[in-house]
């Protein structure tokens, strides 16, 4: 079984935000909820780099470890999903997540923040695949249709890669060898406990 991962090549990312609006478009994500976003460091300075971020679908996901109601599960593809019917909106997962992925429809210092929402790797949730109920709660299920996440498919510069971890690691490795530089597979150590070794 493939182990699905995301990889953002920061040397290609131009912060165009296609990944962000592709996600909005595919899942009709409402205003204020951002399953994916682009973060720029050293903005306007030499060395400026941008990275597209969302749930990385970690191995041994920290969110799952802290969830008091056990709403998270990992699919056979290695995708970390959650059950909104179980979620109580406590916000623990947000504090556990190293990537700031979990989003909540409500803000308050007390009580529930509403059902948590996050990137599903375009693979829906526990409802029946491709059902209306699944779409309304979690958005589209592209994996069930044999497609990859739309954010990566629409990335303007092919910076954001999605797919089997081994394959996208190989694509990245080849790229670094060709061009002679690479700032590394951002977030992989944290998410997957490994990095991509490149001998450029």
């Amino acid at each position, binding site marked *: 079984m493939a182990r699905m991962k995301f990889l953002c090549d920061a*040397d290609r990312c*131009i*912060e*165009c*935000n*296609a*990944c*962000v*609006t*592709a996600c*909005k*478009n*595919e899942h*009709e994500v*409402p*205003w*204020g*909820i951002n399953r994916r*976003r*682009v*973060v*720029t*460091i*050293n*903005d*306007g*300075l*030499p*060395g*400026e*780099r*941008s990275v597209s971020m969302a749930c990385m679908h970690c191995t041994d996901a920290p969110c799952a470890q802290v969830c008091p109601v056990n709403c998270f599960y990992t699919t056979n593809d290695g995708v970390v999903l959650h059950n909104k019917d179980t979620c109580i909106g406590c916000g623990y997962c*947000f*504090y556990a997540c*190293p*990537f*700031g992925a979990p*989003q*909540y*429809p*409500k*803000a308050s*210092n007390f009580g529930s923040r509403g059902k948590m929402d996050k990137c599903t790797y375009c693979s829906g949730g526990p409802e029946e695949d*491709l059902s*209306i109920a699944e*779409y309304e709660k979690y958005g*589209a299920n592209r994996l*069930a*249709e044999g497609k990859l996440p*739309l954010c990566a*498919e*629409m*990335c*303007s*510069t*092919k910076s954001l890669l999605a797919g089997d971890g081994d394959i996208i690691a190989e694509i990245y490795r080849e*790229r670094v060898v*060709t*061009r*002679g530089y690479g700032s590394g597979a951002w977030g992989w150590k944290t998410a997957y406990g490994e990095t991509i070794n490149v001998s450029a």
Partner: protein
Amino acid sequence: MLIKRKNIQASGTGGALAQSFLGMGQRRLDRRSFLRRSGVAVGGLAAVSSLSGGLFQRAEAATPHNHAAPAERRKNMCTHCSVGCSVIAEVQNGVWVGQEPAFESPINRGSHCAKGASSRELVHGDRRLKYPMKKVGGDWVRITWEQAIDEIGAKMLEIREKSGADSVYMLGSAKFTNEASYLFRKFSAFWGTNNVDHQARICHSTTVAGVANTWGYGAQTNSYNDIRNAKTLIFMGSNAAEAHPVAMQHILSGKETQRANVFVLDPRMTRTAAHATEFVRIRPGTDIAVIWGMLWHIFENGWEDKDFIRKRVYGFDEAKAEIMKWNPAEVERVTGLTEEVVKRVAQTFATVKPATFIWCMGGTQHTVGTANVRAYCTLLLATGNVGDIGMGANIFRGHTNVQGATDMGLDVGNLPCYYGLAPAAWAHWCRVWDVPFSYIESRFDDVPAKQGREARTRAQNMEVSGIPSTRWFDAALLDADDVDQQDGIKAMVVFGHGANTIPRMKAAQNGMNALDLLVVADPHPTTFAALHTRTDNTYLLPICTNFECHGSRTASNRSLQWGEKVVEPIFESDNDYAVIYRLSQRLGFADEMFKTFEMVDGKFSKEPTAESILREVNRGGWSTGYTGQSPERLKAHMRNQDKFDIITLRAPKDDPEVGGDYYGLPWPCWGTPEMKHPGTHVLYNTNVPVAEGGGAFRPRFGLEREGVSLLAEDSWPVGSDIEDGYPEFTMALLQKLGWDSELTAEERAVIEKIGGGDPEKIAKVSWTLDLSGGIQRVAIAHGCVPFGNGKARVIAWNLPDPVPVHREPIYTPRPDLVAEYPTREDGRQLRMPNIGHTIQARAVEQKLFDQFPTVLTSGRLVEFEGGGEETRSNPWLAELQQDMFCEVNTKDAAAKGIKDGAWIWVYGPEENAKVRVKALVTDRVAPGVAFMPFHFAGWFMGEDQRGKYPQGTDPVVLGESVNAVTTYGYDPVTGMHEGKATLCRIEAAA
């Protein structure tokens, strides 16, 4: 971080994000930190409250995409920039429910930027104009299409009666399809005016003028894809990462595989510069000094391509007199760049070849725009970097179809396909339109003598270029005697054009108020609907987007792509074809104008088919090679996108449908469609036979000057039967060569008919006027270029400053340089006075620089486009960029006590202009330089104008316009405004 709301943010990601980036040397978060969070979290914010809950409900209310049911896939193109990304729409029950990546497109390979990836929202259209409206006593009132067309038509005829046809200004759009562009140009001709323009005026008019005056055609010579072959790239005044993001796929790929040198020469450390190998910061408005400084090193060290220059370029001996004045000391004095930097860039560009030069509005939007462009071309010619793969002038156009709309003649000085306005050009198009010349002539005004200017007959008036779109309001406000036509501008008919992308908005506001009639035909109301205080005679017509109609568009690389209608026009909107038809009907010339088209039943009325309009373009567009791209061939290309190579853009020769073609049949695509010319991927390329897309420089400036030939020497396209330079092909030349016998009887009959049976006139029938295509066919059969084989020129004796000279911006931070490098003398151009010199002299005399010490420049953001009404109405985009801002250098901000994210006032030196915007404190701009994006409107000089839009059509995000503070200044050739170098003063706002 700008918005300190992270503690109460619903999603609260700021803290975790910031932490996760600490390890990456983060110093400050980016402009995305302007992003505000959920409306629930920060309720009460204007932008969010205006959403009034509708957005949140939509996800449930809209018919969701039923993934279990089949969806129909329809293909069209993104309607934003000129890259030409294919969009695949999934349609269920007539609703666009999903968007899929078009991996098969050789241009975007599935990719999009933020705008393209949110295309579907344009056709959701929460904020679209939903039905025709007019102002009655200051209030917007819903009316029917019939009433709108009837009242607009009546008023136009009344104005025509009183002030003449020229007093109605036809402002068209770079968002038009080619067919709508052509139709609008034809409409203006049948109405009887050359006052017809569109966004090219304010983006690349100076490019078209400068490039065409150098080597023949005013367009990108190569393609986005071809940049993959370049070993050195210079971006000057281009920020492709934000303005043409998908182009960066080809550029970054090429940079990686070629290990290419990428120089970004710009006043700002742009997002493109972040991916360059070297960023060179220049002072706004000093392009010519920089380029001449580079050429000084090139000539001084003998790095020029002597062989190329000898064979294919005219005028370097003369041009060098000016160029060699720019020694390193003078370059440093004027531009601030050191000898070492200039030399390094120059040497790399001249010696690590192929090298390409990429420019955009940073180069073109200047009082010296045309001269800037010619300087860039001069650098390319000196180094032999034109006319082959991996090199050339890669001019990135701005809008989806600004190239096509320009080609179709939405230009005050042209008929379709750059025929100009000479009697022969009108006669040509009258033949294509099947109307007598006298009919069109009768539609034009005669012009009385005014202020010592001679009177013009109707026929003479047809030959005089109209008023550029940058000056329409001056033409509405000035004394009628100052405007070189019967009367000033009394009516604006605006199809798809914003008002906030043109400087001097205070004057534009006054101009709008002065009009007798204002018509806005657009999917959105635009600033033309909200800026003014008009109470009546103001109409809004809902036009659909290009996703809701058929038609072709021409990408920046000259490739045509056919878009198919995705869904029927939503609400009561209708397409341009139908609306232009109905207006023509009301104005009384529809029968004449539309008799050549196939008419079908449209949504509310008859309308011409896009196919039949394109066929008419094919019948007349010989001069630009718009003749081979039949609708059938273009549709075949869309069906076979996956066949085309992503670097060469060519399909394998053995493909049954598109074999050997270049993608989109980039013009020139010579001859008739049956001739199967493959299109021209790279212009002026002598290494390829003409029949395969080869060419040469176009001799359009005469055959000799001062006894020196202007034809190519020892250079010709491979396979040419004439191994030398030669002039354009005419019947006389064919006869002289003895090739006229190869014309078919039908071709000969057409040519003889055009010549009226008179042998002398028949001999003069040229490759541009021959409606049979025979002359082109025979020339190409002999391996010859129909337009001839000439030299490019680096001295344009018909233009002001035949050799470009540096001239300080009108409002310059270096008044000490004005005496030496003044702007051009006052004069009259394009029916209007141009008093730039007076204004510059006054600015220096009044020491305005002391009061306005900061250089102000402007540009694009990736999320929005153009005037931004459409993109700011798209919540998926609007959410990403919710505030108008001004980039202020950290030192300047510190000196003024301005904090990042605080409100500031930016004051301009004219009309007491001021805008209230947020400060983005950054070293992206140099000390003494400020930058503002130009997509915002809806606030004007501190006033929130949201209430002035018809209810429910106000864009999600509003903001001040940079052009409220930009100033006077016009290129003498095209009327391009100065959008990139003026002065301002920045102060903290209370």
